[in-house]
């Protein structure tokens, strides 16, 4: 019914698109695991990351590398402020989860409205032209953007995997996520760890937004209305606390969306994501528990 070329092309496009989805999902899952906050404010950080880069590139006309570096700094700084002066204060005050939810949603809305006020409600791109060189590989269209996005995301995810599994920072994050009070009794400053985790998350969000913004134009509300939901669903599918599982779930969602075009008109595609929320909550409330045991490095070798 469908030629193998079409299927391969859809698979490749889905995979390339998953590059930023996996970053968003990982960022959301990491903060949920370590800081133990449903950080809907992530959409606000995405807006900050994207529009700061837009200012550096399009308005201040910075050299791209500098624009990217400064935008990363701005996003990470905003993330740290969100943790320190937002979640940190609420945590200190022992606020109920309800307050955390309201705060995180409202802060996202605040930055969306602020961006709409400053930049208008029309879509914006990071570069004047979004054309990317096309390569044909056995009949499949592979753009340079596809390669750049996928390779850079895979490198970032690999570095994060190394950090989480092999470094003191990674162990500390795991400890704080499991029992923050006890972690302190082993000399781990949980406030610092919260800042590290939201900084990593902010970096992932910036890079995801950069990739998105070099492929398509973005409305200020896109991160909140479209991208955040994907990250949340991927996190739920993987099971809360499973950071790399969320990344894999994001790849799955991206592929599902790409292939759904064969059966569903494009304007209804987004409903798959929303529908999945109910499907997962109804049938797999604890997620599919994507287990990464296979990748686990045996730590007890030789002991």
């Amino acid at each position, binding site marked *: 019914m469908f030629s193998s070329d079409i299927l391969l092309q859809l698979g490749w496009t889905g995979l390339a698109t998953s590059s930023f989805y996996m970053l968003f999902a990982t960022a959301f899952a990491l903060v949920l695991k370590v800081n133990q906050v*449903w950080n*809907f404010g992530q959409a606000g950080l995405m807006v900050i990351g994207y529009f700061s880069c837009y200012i550096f590139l399009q308005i201040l006309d910075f050299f791209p590398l500098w624009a990217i570096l400064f935008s990363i700094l701005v996003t990470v700084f905003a993330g740290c402020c969100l943790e320190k002066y937002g979640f940190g*204060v*609420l945590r200190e*005050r*022992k*606020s*109920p*989860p*309800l*307050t955390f*939810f*309201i*705060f995180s*949603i*409202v*802060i996202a*809305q*605040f930055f*969306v*409205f*602020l961006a*709409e*006020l400053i930049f*208008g*409600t029309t879509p914006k791109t990071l570069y004047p032209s979004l054309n990317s060189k096309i390569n044909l590989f056995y009949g499949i269209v592979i753009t340079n953007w596809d390669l750049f996005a996928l390779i850079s995301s895979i490198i970032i995810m690999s570095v994060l995997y190394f950090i989480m599994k092999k470094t003191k920072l990674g162990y500390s994050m795991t400890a704080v996520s499991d029992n923050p009070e006890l972690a302190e009794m082993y000399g781990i400053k949980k406030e610092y760890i919260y800042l590290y985790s939201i900084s990593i998350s902010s970096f992932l969000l910036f890079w995801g937004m950069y990739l998105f913004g070099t492929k398509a134009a973005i409305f200020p*509300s896109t991160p*909140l*209305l479209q991208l955040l*939901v994907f990250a*949340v*669903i991927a996190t*739920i599918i993987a099971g809360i606390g499973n950071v790399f599982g969320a990344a894999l779930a994001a790849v799955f969602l991206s592929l599902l969306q790409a292939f759904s075009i064969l059966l569903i008109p494009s*304007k*209804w595609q*987004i*409903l798959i*994501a*929303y*529908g999945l*929320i*109910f499907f997962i*909550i*109804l049938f797999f*409330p604890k997620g599919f528990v994507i287990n990464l045991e296979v990748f686990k490095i045996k730590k007890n070798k030789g002991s």
Partner: protein
Amino acid sequence: MEYFISLFILASINVILATSFNLILGYGGLLSVAQPIFFAIGAYCSALIAIYFDIPIFLSIIFASLIAGVFAFGVSLPSLRVSGDYLVVSTLGFQLGTLHIINNIEITGAAGGLSNIPPLISHPYRSLLTLLIVVCFAVLSIWMVRKIMRSAYGRAITALRNDEIAFSSLGRNPIRIKVLIVALSAAMAGFAGGIYSHYYLYITPEQFGIFATATLLTMVVIGGAGTVLGPAFGAIIITTLPEIITFLNLPVSIMAPLQGVIFTGLVLIFIFVKPSGLIGSTRGLDGLEIWKK
């Protein structure tokens, strides 16, 4: 004069909506971001029933309100079965999904909106009469919430808030209580939506998006979540005050986000500076912090 009557009708409708939202947020301790969508379901369903079926408008509003309640039941039951956290996620999905559908199907008028909605009252003093009716319903909704919270059912809600585990161990079902709160609240919102559509006679999907959620949160948090009169007070302030800036004659493209920034900014300030809201007590035992363990 007509302008002020119309403004007060909107304020009264918002009183019903905010009071209904307070049931979930203030008394139930749950966050549902889809309250504007239940309002929308009420507005669209009532309008469509009135357009396509020959039944009294008031009945169509009641039907629409029930439909909103049933939807809320369907959305909240699966998520609350797992945890209160999931209610935010499922209602977010429901809000965005439903808006997307309304935006893309013909029967609702898609993005262009639904017009030619029959009015609730056809009379030269239509606005004044509607105002009287809506004020009555607004007062009724406040009275109802007060009555519920003072009944045995209300005591169960309070007990649930204080200690869910102890509540469950007495053989009571916390999920049932929570789902009922969400459904009742959605039905009230749907009712308000019905009145809205049959007074303003034109509705568009963009009225029920994230801006509406932000506005509603502002009303409840500023007024004082978990207090009977706070949200009503918040609704009146938040509906009437922005009218002051309309005199600046700013274009809509600036006006809407500016209001959004002000509203969300206000919520942020209140969360950190006065979480008890304007009506809540200064002891910090009202408003959002009432849920503190």
